[in-house]
């Protein structure tokens, strides 16, 4: 469903991705793991058109976004392509980015109402059921500033799900969650997968990656060092860098 080919991304003159390739098939759950600064967040941002890249392409169900230096790059078309991509691919940010001037309910319903054209009443019913899923139904009328970190995290997840995307990108969705909530989110994601949702998760939680994913990608310094099924990766890592990284989780 999501295809990344030859992705080249530089910050200033410092290259991050030097020709990265990745294929995410429909319905799969891909966990991206790797040390801090290895480029997990940036990779997700590239998949959602939030970060421009120099070369290569990102393609989501035929909507093909080219690097700005590519011959096929077309400035006029870019925004339409990105729009199409975003309709299919939702994202939950590491730092939540809730809208501080809207109540929790309003945060969740705004996009469905104004982008998808869903009736307010219906959108609110949906939102409430999503909030129930993340155990926050009683915080619907609160404002983001009145929530704890974990609560904000869960609202952000509910907000992304409300758009009913075909794929969803999670940037460390569990970093502010307690073990119980991690379990809940895991159930939520598993439910999504059953509904056919493609899921990409950048995470530091190895147990979470192992339990939820169908495919694991290990990123180091902007390069995919190893990928495969979680079983293969976690029980039998090939690469030394990867072994070192996993050592603490393994012990």
């Amino acid at each position, binding site marked *: 469903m999501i295809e990344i080919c030859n992705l080249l991304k530089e910050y200033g003159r410092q290259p991050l991705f030097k020709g990265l390739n990745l294929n995410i098939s429909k319905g799969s759950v891909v966990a991206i793991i790797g040390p801090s600064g290895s480029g997990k967040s940036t990779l997700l941002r590239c998949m*959602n*058109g*939030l970060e421009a890249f120099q070369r290569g392409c990102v393609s989501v169900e035929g909507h093909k976004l080219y690097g700005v230096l590519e011959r096929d790059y077309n400035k006029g078309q870019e925004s339409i392509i990105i*729009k199409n991509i*975003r*309709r299919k691919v*939702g*994202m939950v*940010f590491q*730092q*939540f*980015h*809730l*809208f*501080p*001037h809207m109540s929790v309910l309003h945060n969740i319903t*705004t*996009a469905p109402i*104004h*982008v*998808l054209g869903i009736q307010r009443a219906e959108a609110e019913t949906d939102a409430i059921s999503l909030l129930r899923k993340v155990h926050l139904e009683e915080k619907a009328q609160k*404002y*983001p*500033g*009145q929530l704890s970190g974990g609560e*904000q995290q869960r609202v952000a997840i509910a*907000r*992304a799900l409300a*758009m009913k995307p075909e794929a969803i990108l999670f940037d460390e969705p569990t970093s502010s969650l307690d073990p119980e909530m991690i379990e809940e989110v895991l159930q939520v994601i598993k439910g999504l997968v059953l509904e056919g949702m493609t899921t990409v998760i950048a995470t530091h939680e190895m147990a979470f990656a192992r339990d939820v994913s169908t495919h694991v990608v290990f990123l180091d310094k902007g390069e995919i060092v190893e990928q495969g099924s979680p079983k293969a990766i976690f029980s039998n890592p090939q690469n030394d860098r990867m072994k070192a990284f996993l050592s603490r989780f393994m012990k």
Partner: protein
Amino acid sequence: MVMKYRIFIILGMILQIFISSEYLPKSDAFAYQDTLDKIKSRGVITWGFDAEGGAPYVFHDPAHPAKLIGFEVEIVEAIARELGVKVQFFQNAWDSILLSLRRGDFDIALNGIEITPERVQTALFTRPYYAYTEQIVARASDNRINRLEDLHGKKVGTLYNTEAKRLLEEMGDVAVSIYSGQVEPFKDLSLNRIDAVLVDLPIAAYYAMPNPQLRMVGSPVGEGYYGIALRKEDTALAEELNKITEKLLRTGELKRIYSRWGLWNVAQEKLFFHEGLLQQYTESPPSVSETMPVGVTRFLPTLFKGALVTIGISLLSMMLAVTLGLLLAIMRLYGNKWFQMISTAYIEIYRGTPLLIQLYILYYGMPNIGVSLSAFAAAILGLGMNYAAYEAEIYRAGIQAIHKGQTEAALSLGMSRRLTLKRVILPQALRIAIPPMTNDFIALFKDSSLVSVIAITELTKSYGILAAASMDFFKLGIITALLYFGMSYPLSRYARKWEKKLTSHDRNL
């Protein structure tokens, strides 16, 4: 024409007077026992007038600019001849002519001064020397207007501080445009900006008659008298002047003068019998309204009306500034190179050049390319477009202060840029922009007085007019200043409340 700071200069001067007595007029009229004697002993009568007021009263002869001509020049010269003295000319702004008379700058004020109950309270009037009527002038091509009644629902120009203005205002549903100059109403009439002009007959006769585009409509309406204004205590002089006027009437000299200027009509016959009428002014009202409080409160409605115009213009132009400013800010932030350039150029030019020039071009320049704006429209457009440049920068600052993550989150939800701006960014940017916007709005209240250059009577101009009429500069000035403060203070209170509301549950994520 520069009305903007007139009120404050006057207030300042009053202040100065209170602070240092050295600015008090060095003498005052009460020092005279008898102006008539002085005139005779000096051999000179000093005559106050405003040549800027123009034809056919007193004006510079277009053929020989150094010479003053006009029917009033001839009348004064006749009076001086009868008195056996020479005339000394004293040019004085018409607005303050009675004020200067009272200060003792000249002996008589004679310059189309209508005898009104207000004026009778501050000056002594001789018997009338001319019975004026009001003349309607319309476009020659416009056959809708044939009588005074036809002015209902129309836009009619007139001059400020005239009986014609009062007449129009009494009609209720006439949109009255008030001008300071005598040329402009006819100009705006030709430009289709107003439907008719109602002015004293002499003015209509001089300015409209020779213009083939305009026509005098029907017979003159209303009536009133021009009198010579003297200081209250100059009763002896008044008596003498009354005698002379009577003589000029009887000998037919006045009629000759008026005929020469095309001003004689049957109405003038009343000059022979006017006396009862004049008494009505001079004797009954002063007892009622000579006390000051009555006088000041009586002017309040007019001041309030001026304040309403100021508020109206400020509100409407602020609305324009807000909308256009937002558009400019968005063009600068999100537009392509060209939009950015246009927006930047607009901002630099409108901020860098003075508002007054912008107003002049809009009101007097645009008709040349076929766009003729009403004064009100020009005022709002001029102020709004100027302030838009300032607002644009304020919004830009507000928008840029919002965390980039907010935009990204909204975009990732599939929102368009427009929707993101409207639902996510602007509501947050607004909170930051409210205080500087309030600043500008308050400044706009004061700047809006500049539009009086294009025939709009807002608060400062109302003050000017009333102060000239009532000569109560100080009290009216204080009231006017309070009215301005009364506009800005609630605004600033409301803005703070609004700001607080927007901040209340926003722990600033």
